[in-house]
């Protein structure tokens, strides 16, 4: 039988170890018990009181070697960086017994706390009992660990404590930390990165980097660090490429069951680069005229950005001194400086996962998008509905098999966006149609009480995941099946979170007044903030309603309903061609629609309904006409030739009636056809634009031949409606692109040029800014936008994309 000892004091433990040098020390047991070694004797040191304390002195903290990770996590004296590493270890049950002393003495190349301890220059205190007393020696951690599971621990020694100097983790130091593992918990790392950088008066005082799991021991190269310490911050920042080359030369990871050498090295260098680029990054914008997003008069001032925030705004020349020489300077003489534009109605939902640069948006100065629009988007998405839903979405968001669709929830979808690392900030509304699908499928009926309850529950879950609010598109399915009552119930949940209800209303044509009343009723009954999407009225018979629409907005506001709206500044809209069909044609989803399109009697009925109209249904063919609806995207290669044609031209090409040809196309493309339709007049656009509730959006569908708004909405407002037609002052227009948009969506700390706000900025030329895209050639970069900064990092410089992707996922707080 194994002999064991249970000392309770350090001296007792050391005496025991001195007498039984072959005995194995047991602290947390989490490695030892897995190793299943033949044991003859054990010394349990988990109850030795001296090993259980954290002591704070003036200069350092001393951490007892046998304190559990769990207790370290709740100790305020333990450095945050170390806690970050500890949180990554295994799972709670392991952290409830595992100890840092164990992690050190095991000396695994993948020990999660080790890189941090190397980085913080931890010193170990090793104790023995010799000649009747406790003797101690100190060893730096990198001297103590000698190889894989090799240390200089002597047979009679016990690791007593770990000393970390406070100077090593002072508040002024910027730390980087990342563990890369195959999963969030219970993962042995593929690699672990940590780094420190500090500066005083513009001189680098600390530069340290440590990597785990990429060598037999932690990789830390003091020679490289030394080379770059004591440089001026400006010289340091100029040396980033060189630093990366140095680490590229010395990192020699291996292939093993957890990862490959190539992957490890690439990620190691990327993490380092990101850390170096973002730490102490400073940008000075000088000589510009600030249009700050509040609507207040423009003024001349300079802006200092530090890392991801606006640090200071002050009079011209304020940031020109020597202490700013490390900053990247943008000469904004003759330019306007404004907050980055916020696109409150965007359809980059799918594209951002596969083309995270989202260049059409960046080029026009957009730094934040709101996804999840029109009640149908990516998440939540139950696994059983993936294939049907992909078809339903394709017209709005495009198609892709480049990522895994089994993400199910908004939380997971947002995490995927984060993984994709977008170039601009992304935020999300939970779409009503997705909620309905998860709770009750795609049928045309009212929910049962239980299903409505379930829908509220899903809404709550997704709001908790960080959605800014709820969206619906009451012409799209399954949203259109919903009655007002259903929406009121969901909006009550959204209102609890002070979220916004963003809605493509039931009618933008004949019955628009009833439609608006419905939405305002939802605001009245639920208390939710209302935001009308792409506000407009379609069809010349309906233009007369515009004054009454404005009256409804005024009355609602007087009553206390919070109302805002967005608009894209074009007289044509873009959506999916499927909307030309009467709603019943879509019942039961895309597969059912395909069956109906194959059935000649169903086709006849569709044509009849289109010709005669159905009360309450927005009949696009009626208000735009087959001459004014153009095909903008199809999925299949063989139909690419029809892209750009109007429906009447399509009919001529196919030698059929226009509607028949359109039905055939929908059938061949499984409903994935995009379109634009001309609906209104420029003067209506201007009238809506002047409304106080209005902010600008793109409603940008990115696939196929897009609507020019995807590339030009924001510059078009500033060029055409501000400069050329003088509909708005620049200050008011910018507020409608930034501050007002942020307020409408509940986005915090963005949308204004204000100290402490995130540094999203766009620098543009008021004399030159203009959109260039046309309906024939929509994909044209706008002019007059020179620099775009996202979270403190320039992503467009002199009109060119820098390759940086520094966007964040914005979650409601």
């Amino acid at each position, binding site marked *: *039988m*194994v*002999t*064991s000892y*249970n000392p309770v004091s350090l001296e007792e433990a050391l005496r025991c170890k001195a007498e039984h040098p072959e005995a194995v020390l*047991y602290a947390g*047991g*989490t490695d*030892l*018990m*897995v190793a299943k070694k033949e*044991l003859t004797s*054990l010394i*349990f040191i*988990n*109850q030795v009181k001296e090993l259980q304390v954290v002591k704070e002195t003036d200069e350092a903290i001393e951490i007892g070697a046998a304190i559990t990770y*769990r207790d370290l996590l709740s100790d305020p004296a333990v450095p945050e960086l170390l806690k970050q590493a500890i949180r990554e270890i*295994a*799972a*709670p*049950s*392991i952290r*409830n*017994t595992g100890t840092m002393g164990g992690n050190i003495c095991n000396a695994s190349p993948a020990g999660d706390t080790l890189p941090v301890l190397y980085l913080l220059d931890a010193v170990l205190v090793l104790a023995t009992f010799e000649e009747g007393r406790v003797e101690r020696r100190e060893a730096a951690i990198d001297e103590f660990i000698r190889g894989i599971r090799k240390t200089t621990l002597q047979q009679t020694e016990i690791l007593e404590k770990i000393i970390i100097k406070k100077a090593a983790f002072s508040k002024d130091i910027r730390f980087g930390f990342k563990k890369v593992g195959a999963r*969030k*918990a*219970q993962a042995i790392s593929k690699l672990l990165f940590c780094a420190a950088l500090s500066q005083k008066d513009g001189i680098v005082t600390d530069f340290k980097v440590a990597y785990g799991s990429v060598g037999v021991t932690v990789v830390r190269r003091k020679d490289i660090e030394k080379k770059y310490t004591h440089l001026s911050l400006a010289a340091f920042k100029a040396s980033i490429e060189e630093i990366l080359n140095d680490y590229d030369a010395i990192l020699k990871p291996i292939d093993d069951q957890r990862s490959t050498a190539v992957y490890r090295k690439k990620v190691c260098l990327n993490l380092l680069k990101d850390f170096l680029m973002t730490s102490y990054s400073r940008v000075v914008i000088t000589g510009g005229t600030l249009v700050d997003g509040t609507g207040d008069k423009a003024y001349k001032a300079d802006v200092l950005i530090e890392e991801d925030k606006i640090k200071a705004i002050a009079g011209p020349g304020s940031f020109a001194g020597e202490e700013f020489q490390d900053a990247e300077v943008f000469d904004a003489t003759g330019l306007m400086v404004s907050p980055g534009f916020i696109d409150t109605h965007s359809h980059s939902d799918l594209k951002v996962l596969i083309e995270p640069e989202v260049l059409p948006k960046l080029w026009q100065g957009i730094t934040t998008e709101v996804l999840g629009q029109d009640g149908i988007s990516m998440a939540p998405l139950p696994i059983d509905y993936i294939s049907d839903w992909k078809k339903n979405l394709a017209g709005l968001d495009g198609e892709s098999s480049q990522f895994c669709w089994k993400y199910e929830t908004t*939380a997971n979808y947002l995490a995927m966006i984060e993984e994709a690392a977008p170039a601009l900030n992304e935020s999300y509304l939970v779409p009503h149609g997705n909620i309905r699908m998860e709770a009750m499928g795609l049928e045309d009926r009212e929910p049962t009480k239980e299903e409505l309850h379930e829908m509220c529950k899903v809404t709550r*879950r997704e709001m*908790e995941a960080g959605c800014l609010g709820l969206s619906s598109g009451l012409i799209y399915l399954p949203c259109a099946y919903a009655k007002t009552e259903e929406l009121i119930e969901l909006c009550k949940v959204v209102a609890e979170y002070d979220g916004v209800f963003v809605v493509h209303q039931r009618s933008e044509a004949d019955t628009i007044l009833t439609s608006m009343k419905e939405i305002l009723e939802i605001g009245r009954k639920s208390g939710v903030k209302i935001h009308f999407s792409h506000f407009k009225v379609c069809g010349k018979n309906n233009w007369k309603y515009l004054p009454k629409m404005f009256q409804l907005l005024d009355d609602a506001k007087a009553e206390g309903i919070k109302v805002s709206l967005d608009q894209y500044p074009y007289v044509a809209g873009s959506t999916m061609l499927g909307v030309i069909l009467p709603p019943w044609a879509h019942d039961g989803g895309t597969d059912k629609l395909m069956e109906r399109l194959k059935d000649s009697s169903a086709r006849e009925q569709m044509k009849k309904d289109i010709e005669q109209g159905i009360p309450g249904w927005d009949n696009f063919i009626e208000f735009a006409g087959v001459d004014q609806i153009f095909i903008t995207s199809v999925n299949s290669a063989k139909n690419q030739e029809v892209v750009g044609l109007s429906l009447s031209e399509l009919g001529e090409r196919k030698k059929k009636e226009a509607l028949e040809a359109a039905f055939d196309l929908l059938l061949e493309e499984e409903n994935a056809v995009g379109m634009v339709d001309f609906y209104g007049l420029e003067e209506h656009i201007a009238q809506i634009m002047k409304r106080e509730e209005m902010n600008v959006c793109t409603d940008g569908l990115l696939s196929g031949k897009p609507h020019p708004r995807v590339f030009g909405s924001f510059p078009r407002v500033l060029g055409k409606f501000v400069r050329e037609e003088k509909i708005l002052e620049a200050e008011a227009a910018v507020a409608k692109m930034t501050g007002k948009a942020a307020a409408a969506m509940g986005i915090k700390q963005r949308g204004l040029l204000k100290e402490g706000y995130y540094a999203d900025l766009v620098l543009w030329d008021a004399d030159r800014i203009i959109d260039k895209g046309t309906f024939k050639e929509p994909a044209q970069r706008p002019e007059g936008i020179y620099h775009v900064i996202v979270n403190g990092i320039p992503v467009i410089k002199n009109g060119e994309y820098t390759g940086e992707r520094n966007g964040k996922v914005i979650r409601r707080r």
Partner: protein
Amino acid sequence: MVFTLNYKAVKYEGDPSKRLLDVLRDDYGLMEQKEGCGEGECGACAVLINGRSVNSCITAIGSLAGKEVVTLEGYRSTKQYKALEEAFAKSGAVQCGFCIPGMIMAAESLLSSNPNPSEADIREGISGNLCRCTGYNMIVEGVQMAAKEGKGLW
């Protein structure tokens, strides 16, 4: 060696390196704790030691002198267990049941230090417990529900 097992002091005189899991099953007939992986990865063997969940398959009995061990058999007599049991039943959190004793221990360990956990806290709290049936959502919901319905117990 003396320790507390399910609120009663017991004396153990066998091999101190024996796994707690084996001691519970062989010496005391307590079968709720299951051996899943045997190396601390799956949480099926979790028990409470001084109120915190620990994997009994990688805990040597000799390390527990003076400690309080609670297994599901003992925990069952508590109000907290009742709240979890009811919530797990309501949310459909139990399918084959193999992971559930460990899940309950993980939930108790979480709730005792954080009575109002967010969904993320719960997922973190059970991150060391594998379930091959439910996909976790119902279990997360169960813990959430227990926290809500059993307010004041933790």
